[in-house]
């Protein structure tokens, strides 16, 4: 059966330096540079190694941006901003002015204020939906991975059904049946993310369940639920969390796409996707209306992806035999 290989399932395989036969640290590069070790070559190598160990500048930039967005979102009501819902008729299609830092939208509402208030909605949807999906999917995935057999087959069926059902139709249905609200959107997205988390957690659980300490706990006669809670959960939580972090970025984009289709967070509440979509009609004349929220969303998702990817890379072995 083809299991979707989800990123982050690789267990810790940092290269050991001790064993000289396994995983020699750096047998790379066919190009035999520096056969004669000039002092310069050695210094260059050392410099390169130091650079590899240093935290790159982008890491701080990403965290700073993300921190700023989160703080602004949390404290948005306290900040001296324009009311995001009130139009200013002098600011329709407005450009950058001292009063309106990022200009105004098609109704003349302040873009800067709306971007910050929009961050609340976008982040809330991303974090809550992923959190909920990871929790439910994580628990089900551990059960599937640990018990196997019928549990696993039933969950595989559920997973496949959700994956084979177009997500968008599902969201439309949820919104239509339960009403259009932030909570319902979160629930819908969470359900859609559950299968991925089941697969991811299941794969990680299969690896952990083979380890000695789990076998030992089993031999002692610990109850399965206790083993899952005490032995397996702590060991699968890291890869799942790393993946969940990246999923937050994905869901911010998904929320944007839904808003673009008019299915996202209902209108008076600003959201990034809704703002980008709102400027679509004036795209060719006043591109900045869509551009600013798009840029903010882009930078936020980029920061999340960058941080998540770098965190994941800590587990990745780098050099090749070639």
């Amino acid at each position: 059966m083809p299991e979707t290989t989800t990123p982050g399932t690789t267990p810790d395989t940092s290269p050991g330096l001790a064993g000289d036969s396994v995983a020699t640290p750096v047998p790379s590069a066919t190009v035999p540079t520096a056969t004669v070790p000039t002092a310069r070559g050695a210094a260059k190598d050392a410099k390169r190694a130091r650079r590899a160990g240093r935290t790159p500048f982008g890491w701080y930039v990403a965290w700073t941006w993300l921190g700023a967005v989160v703080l602004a979102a949390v404290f948005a009501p306290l900040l001296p901003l324009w009311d995001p819902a009130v139009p200013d008729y002098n600011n329709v299609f407005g450009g950058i002015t001292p009063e309106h830092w990022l200009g105004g939208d098609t109704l003349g509402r302040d873009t800067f204020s709306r971007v910050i208030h929009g961050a609340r909605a976008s982040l809330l949807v991303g974090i809550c939906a992923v959190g909920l999906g990871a929790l439910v999917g994580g628990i089900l995935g551990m059960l599937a991975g640990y018990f196997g057999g019928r549990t696993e087959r039933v969950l595989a069926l559920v997973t496949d059904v959700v994956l084979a059902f177009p997500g968008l139709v599902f969201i439309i249905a949820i919104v239509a049946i339960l009403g259009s609200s932030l909570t319902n959107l979160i629930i819908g997205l969470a359900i859609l993310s559950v299968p991925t988390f089941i697969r991811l957690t299941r794969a990680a659980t299969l690896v952990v369940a083979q380890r000695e300490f789990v076998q030992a706990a089993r031999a002692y006669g610990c109850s399965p639920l206790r083993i899952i809670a005490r032995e397996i959960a702590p060991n699968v939580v890291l890869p799942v969390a790393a993946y969940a972090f990246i999923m937050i970025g994905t869901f911010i984009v998904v929320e944007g796409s839904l808003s673009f289709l008019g299915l996202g967070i209902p209108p008076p509440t600003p959201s990034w996707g809704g703002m980008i979509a709102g400027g679509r009609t004036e795209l060719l004349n006043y591109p900045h209306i869509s551009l600013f929220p798009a840029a903010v969303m882009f930078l936020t998702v980029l920061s999340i992806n960058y941080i998540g990817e770098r965190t994941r890379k800590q587990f990745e072995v780098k050099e090749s035999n070639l």
Partner: protein
Amino acid sequence: MADTMATTPAIPATAGGPGAPRGARRRSAVGRIRKRLTHLLLVLLAVTFLSFVVVDLLPGDAAVVVAGDNATPEQVQQVREDLQLDRPVLIRYVDWLGGVLTGDLGSSFRTGQPVAEALAQRIPVSFEITIVAQLLALLIAVPLAVYSAYRPGRLVDRASMTIGFGAAAMPTFVFGMVLIVLFAGGVSSILPATGYTGFFEDPLANLRSIILPCLTLMIAEAAVYRQLLRSDMISTLQEDFILMARSKGLSPRKILLRHALRPSSFSLITLSGVNIGRLLGGTVIVETLFAIPGLGQLIVQAVFNRDYMILQGALLFVAVAYVVINMLIDLLYLALDPRVRRDA
């Protein structure tokens, strides 16, 4: 051992261990395939039934929608009976299923157009865009991934990673909007911003009309594919058999393409398959942005119009596509990895 584990407990009689004769092993393979087919059939049934239930739960009365705004209650009731909406969900589902098995997908509630005909109009459009976008994505991603894995951390790797990062962080519709501004009305107007021309009507116009949608769809996928293949390839390149191949004196090119690529491509194939399955069901955003009459538009309109029959037929196609693609991936695995051949 793998055989026994895989076949128990559903079909215990076909346990073919390592020492079992060839016939037993083949029978266990048949058992596994049968189990897989059963599973996929269940998925099909569950998805189609689920869609019936979902549509049933949707607020708004289809009969009212169909009968029109000015209809009298009697007329609405008449429509309801005509469409058999007064019967329980399960009965209607079984009815519909019976129809599907005899090749009758029903007709649209609103236009009376046969569902099969509506699907036949839309599927080729979605199919063309999906396949072209996937091929483009793979064509760009695979060489970049192979070279990046060969020289990780060098210019090509870093540059393609940076661009890929950006692409993955950009929502599809934003990228599509950027393309429109650049090529269809803003900076230049060399391509149509909206619309779709069939291939058999005018191949050139067809090509021009799918360029922007395909580019929009392709970019994020190419980024993900590159990243996935690169990282799988890097782990393959650490294998002893690569060192062994090098020690034979093979050129890096041969080692990369003949030794490393195939064993590194399994996750990529799975993901690409899943994506094709997903995209065949329509790409609502791209279709909306570029006004393309694909399956996604059809589905969304059917939901809003409460056009059950169209929706059912479309969802059936999506589920079948998912199932068929899954089976194709399985077969591809068999072809690519001899180790699976023994177990499966």
